[in-house]
């Protein structure tokens, strides 16, 4: 897949995650190419957002390993930007658009350091790129859903990363924002940057993305759109879970058999 010698932006090996005792993802492995737009696709509850959070170290893995450009995330924080789901945030929080975007610069700042002139210039450019500069002094509670999403994207841009992980950026946005995001993807791709998105809309996935990772509690398929966007894969991804597999895995976590097994 990856012909150059550079290690892949993200390599996931045997990743398993759970919620309490319920298995969410089991034994997921894949590797993505650089400079492409990549969609993580699957039905509701398939574990798409969980996969993204697991890769970013925001939720614990029970098993598995994730490397960024061949190294652990801790070494590649500054090249990785994460865009959380819009619903995760309290949009009544008293803060202005500009201050949210400046948060993207905190990875580079020391303990008590405040964003300086350069940081402000970078944030300004990010806001302009997403046509949100006129809204810089607005309170975030006064933005529409699409504008909120663009603020989040501007914040990610301000991080000046080379890999972007986005959780449902297209969910519930207006046409103008959808276009702005597509434009942003083009610009970023032209700079050789990699974008990974959780995506829910099967109608647009072939148009917006180069690559697809189908998941439904496990990996169904991963590869270029032309190869993997097939009826067969769709059926596998959306055809519901295998109940016996699910129940037994849950039982395994509940009884902690995997730990007992190792200690034998």
């Amino acid at each position, binding site marked *: 897949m990856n012909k150059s010698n550079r290690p892949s932006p993200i390599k996931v090996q045997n990743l398993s995650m759970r919620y309490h005792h319920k298995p969410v993802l089991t034994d997921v492995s894949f590797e993505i190419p650089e400079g492409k737009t990549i969609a993580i696709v699957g039905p509701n509850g398939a574990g798409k957002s969980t996969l993204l*959070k697991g890769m*970013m*170290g*925001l939720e614990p893995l029970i098993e598995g390993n994730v490397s960024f450009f061949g190294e652990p995330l*801790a070494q590649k*924080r*500054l090249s*990785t*930007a*994460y865009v*959380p789901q819009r619903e*995760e*945030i*309290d949009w009544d*929080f*008293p*803060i*202005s658009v500009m*201050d*949210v975007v400046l*948060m993207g610069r*905190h*990875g580079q*700042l020391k*303990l*008590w350091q*405040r*964003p300086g002139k350069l940081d402000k210039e970078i944030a300004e450019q990010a806001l302009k790129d997403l046509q949100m500069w006129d809204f810089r002094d607005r*309170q975030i*509670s006064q933005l529409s859903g699409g504008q909120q999403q663009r603020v989040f994207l501007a*914040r990610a841009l301000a*991080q000046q990363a080379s890999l972007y992980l986005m959780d449902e950026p297209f969910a519930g946005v207006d046409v103008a924002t959808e276009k702005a995001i597509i434009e942003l993807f083009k610009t970023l791709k032209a700079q050789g940057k990699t974008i990974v998105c959780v995506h829910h809309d099967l109608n647009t996935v072939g148009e917006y993305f180069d690559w697809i990772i189908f998941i439904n509690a496990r990996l169904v398929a991963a590869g270029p759109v032309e190869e993997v966007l097939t009826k067969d894969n769709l059926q596998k991804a959306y055809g519901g879970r295998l109940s016996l597999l699910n129940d037994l895995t849950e039982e395994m976590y509940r009884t902690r058999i995997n730990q007992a097994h190792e200690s034998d």
Partner: protein
Amino acid sequence: MMEGFTLLDPLTLSPPSTWQLLFEFWQFNDMNVLWVLMGSILLGVSASVIGSFAFLRRRSLIGDALAHAALPGVMMAFLLFHTRDPLVMFLGAVTSSFIGFFIIDWLPKNTKIKPDAALAITLSFFFALGLMLLSFIQGMEVENKSGLDKILFGQAAAMTQEDITLLMYVTIFILIAVVLFFQKFRLIAFNTNFARSLGMAVNRYELLLALLIVMSVVVGLQLVGVVLMAAVLLTPIATARMWSDELRNILFLAGAVGAISAIISTQISYLAPAMPTGPWMVVSLSSLFFLSLLFAPKKGLVKRYLMQRQLRQKVLEENILRTLYKLWERSQFEQNDFNISDIQALRAMSTLNLRKALKQLCRRDLLKESARGFRLTENGLEQATQLTRRHRLWENYLNEHLELSPDQVHSQAERIEHILTLEQEKQLEEELKDSRKDPHGNRIPDAQVRTQTGSKST
């Protein structure tokens, strides 16, 4: 310095009047009064500021639990060392507060107990333990035990010089920490996962925040008391939130609110030495909160009520204008002269309200009194036409784009017609290029009609 102090001992002096006491209080003849006042202001400010972050993180009750959790620590420290030394008390309180904090944090993460239950269980357990120890100490034959029960409700006048000195060091430390870490605290409060994704040591900052809250709670015990400390952490930010949307301003305001209530309650504690300070502080804080809730310029309830009333009036008037347009349309644009029963035949509304609204419309030169009753003036016609146009355009839009039936679209358009702007009207016009009639078959008046009808009606 001197051991303890009270400004005036009511037993040895003949009781002075309240004004005399107030006067003496503000003269600061007794340096200690000044110290206590300064200390309580600093506490008010720092507790308000640090409590704001708990409030923004939706962990409002944590302060309450931590304050209650401090009680057994104070009692244990006294039992172990038989001293009222402020530093010993402080360390005892911080220790037991922190134990409480870790239990509250640990329980929901490792068991099926939810955070609210964990909080309630911990709070009541520690408080009960503290009360038990307190009654045990009161039954003992030891020195210095007399003031211990004061930390339940706070007593500013009973504070010693050493208490105040410690209070000042701690509160100043808290304020400096908040100024230094403001950006990080705000980032974590706003979006914890994002902060983690940046590689920030979120857990360490959370621990620091917890420590600062514990510290301010603990030094506040003698002033405000265990039971009511939570109010000093939360009420100021809740008050300030009504006035501003910018966190820096909110924190300054919250600090000011905390300071004002500190001044009021400390004063009262000296004027009426039997009165505990805590309840007074909380009552004055709550008064400020209710005042803000009612009268804040943008979010106050009074303002909201007025806006709502204004809107209702506007809708009523616009509905009358549109009814008049329809009547005029039915007479083939011949007769522009209507009475109240004409209007009521088309639209149900109370005669009283209708009369009032008609009078108002006349005053605004949209209607004029005429032979039968009222007629639309040039301005009135223009506005009535525009409203009808918006109403029907919107009906068409819903009919075409959402495929709603003519019956469904009417009630929706009844609402939308009042809020459509000129810009949105133009947008609608463009999207519905060649619609001349609404789904009910009525003609949509053109934008130009205004001038024609205007000339006709004069």
